[in-house]
């Protein structure tokens, strides 16, 4: 029983962590929290099932196509919903534009894909229990993503440029960094990470349009708790949330488990608005 809670908790938590990283990557490049993070996660599952299960495309090719769709959606998000409102970022119009875009995509999915959960194919049937794809695949994806991001940020030029933008927009622009292109690249990257989360988690969460709102919220919790922009915080927060949620499901049952997660989220945020990792408030004047 403990094994079940831990394995599912970690696997679900890895999906949440990846969605959290998706939020972070977009935020770092633009100071924008985008409601499209959950949408990407939802589409990762739906598109994967569509390509591989319904259209019978080879799994590897299907996977690549899903990531490509994610990248394209990321770029569209940037062009359509972020760039036009970036100049007046203090008005927080991005909350509305990204929400609108995410709702539109979700509605199209609901109509074209259907409102019932649909199966996602087993791609790597190597075993049962811990060896079941649905447990290790999200964890692997999460590890690969965090490793890849660390490598990107530390050892590559473009990664350092990302960091420079995240650290100080104006200074980076003054240094002659192509801020716009880096932002587009970040959104494309976020698109890929988001769909990766959905793709690897879909065996567990199914290809279901309703996953969007679930992932939007549960993917945001690790960001809020781990401190925004911190990918390590997101991973720790995500895994902790997954475990907490499974434990709460087990201990107090369905209705109160959802209430417990939401309540803990709100209380923790009120006590530590900057997240548990914490950061000081920005200069305002």
């Amino acid at each position: 029983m403990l094994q079940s809670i831990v394995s599912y908790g970690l696997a679900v938590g890895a999906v949440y962590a990846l969605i959290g990283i998706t939020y972070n990557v977009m935020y770092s490049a633009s100071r924008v929290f985008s409601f499209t993070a959950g949408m990407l996660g939802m589409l990762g599952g739906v598109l994967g099932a569509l390509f591989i299960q319904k259209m019978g495309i080879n799994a590897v090719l299907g996977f690549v196509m899903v990531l490509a769709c994610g990248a394209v959606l990321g770029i569209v998000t940037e062009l359509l919903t972020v760039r036009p409102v970036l100049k007046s970022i203090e008005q927080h119009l991005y909350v509305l534009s990204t929400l609108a875009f995410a709702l539109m995509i979700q509605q199209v999915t609901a109509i074209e894909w259907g409102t019932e959960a649909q199966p996602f194919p087993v791609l790597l049937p190597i075993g049962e229990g811990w060896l079941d794809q649905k447990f290790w695949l999200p964890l692997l994806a999460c590890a690969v993503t965090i490793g890849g991001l660390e490598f990107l940020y530390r050892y590559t030029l473009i990664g350092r440029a990302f960091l420079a933008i995240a650290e100080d927009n104006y200074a980076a622009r003054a240094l002659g960094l192509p801020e716009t292109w880096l932002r587009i690249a970040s959104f494309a990257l976020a698109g890929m990470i988001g769909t990766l989360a959905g793709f690897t988690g879909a065996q567990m969460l199914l290809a279901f349009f309703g996953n969007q709102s679930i992932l939007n919220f549960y993917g945001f919790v690790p960001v809020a708790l781990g401190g925004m922009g911190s990918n390590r915080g997101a991973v720790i927060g995500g895994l902790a949330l997954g475990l907490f949620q499974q434990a709460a499901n087990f201990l107090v049952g369905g209705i109160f488990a959802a209430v417990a997660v939401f309540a803990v989220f709100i209380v923790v945020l009120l006590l530590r608005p900057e997240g548990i990792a914490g950061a000081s408030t920005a200069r305002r004047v």
Partner: protein
Amino acid sequence: MRIRRRQVLSGSAAGAVSLASGLAAPAIAANEPIKIGYLPALTGPSSSTGVGINRGVQLAVEDINNAGGVNGRKLELIVRDTQSDPTKAVNAVSELTQRQKVSMIFGPVNSGEALAATPLIARDKVPMLHPCWVDELIDVKKYPMAFRQAPTNSQIGGGANHYVVDVLKLKKVAVISDTTGYGTASVNTYVPMLKAKGADVVYTNHIDAANPDLKPEMLRMQSAGAQVIMPWSVNAGFLSRILNTRGAMNWDVPVVGQTTLGSGQTKALLEKPEYWNKVYSNNFRKCCYVDGKLPPLTAEYVERLKKAKIEFADTLLWWVALGWDGVRLMADVFKNGGTKAEEIVGYMNKVKDWPGVYGTVTWTPQQHNGFPDSEVVMCEVNSLKDGAFNLAPGYAS
């Protein structure tokens, strides 16, 4: 097939005309079409039931109108898609009763909508026929013009409980549901009923349908000694997780419960086909195979459906039959009783043993729930063929 709201189907051009003149006062002339208000949920979440019923409804209207209508008057169906949204249902009711002045209303199917629509329809004194199962919808004092052709939730639960306790002779029962209104209400109703029948409810819980992992729940049921699991949910994802977990645990326990257990969506989500074994869902005697055969009236009906090329891959026979019966029943009422509210109610109060494909209907002035207990049965879900199932083992045929 995509059906739009307010799609007017009448077999003639009369529908379009009456829509255009919706504001005009209704003239009750001998050849005016008889208006039936119809409130299905054709789009939105949990619309597959509505889509299935709709196929039966549309076909029945077509058949009746092609045969000359009712006493020379065509049936005109005024459809409003409620999208399972109670607020849309309330808007639709006032359009149907006040503006369209329909003679009768069929639907809605989903509980939230039906609960909201019924008092309003009653207030406007329009007779209604319910395909919905929620017990609270029928109350001859509060809603004297509301009748039900379908079983109540209590009958559905009673049927499942009867099968578990009396047929399978199992005493230790686990009852679970998702966290929707339907799920929680079902568990709250059925557990006391089970206890009254002498069963021992060893485990009961409401589970978040989005929870991917049901193993802890299942383990707890197992350790509580459950001999049978009774899940109440219309969520195919949730039900398939129960069956998949049961299969992965190699736990040889029967699952007895909601009709969605036997739906194509649930089947599609199973990890292995054999996980569908020992699963018994609610069904209705007249829509079940006995020794590979359907009852004669039903068999005849299925032939009719095949001729009309009604799609069965994604629906169930009883859904289609329910819609078909509803329209045929209303047509009979119009034909033999009349189209005024009091004529309709007067006739319906005396309907006895009306032979439906879905069920046999009997109403009295005191009892507007018309479906007989004896026709609520369980079926073997893995026997699905042409939208129908074999009667579960143990029933006397």
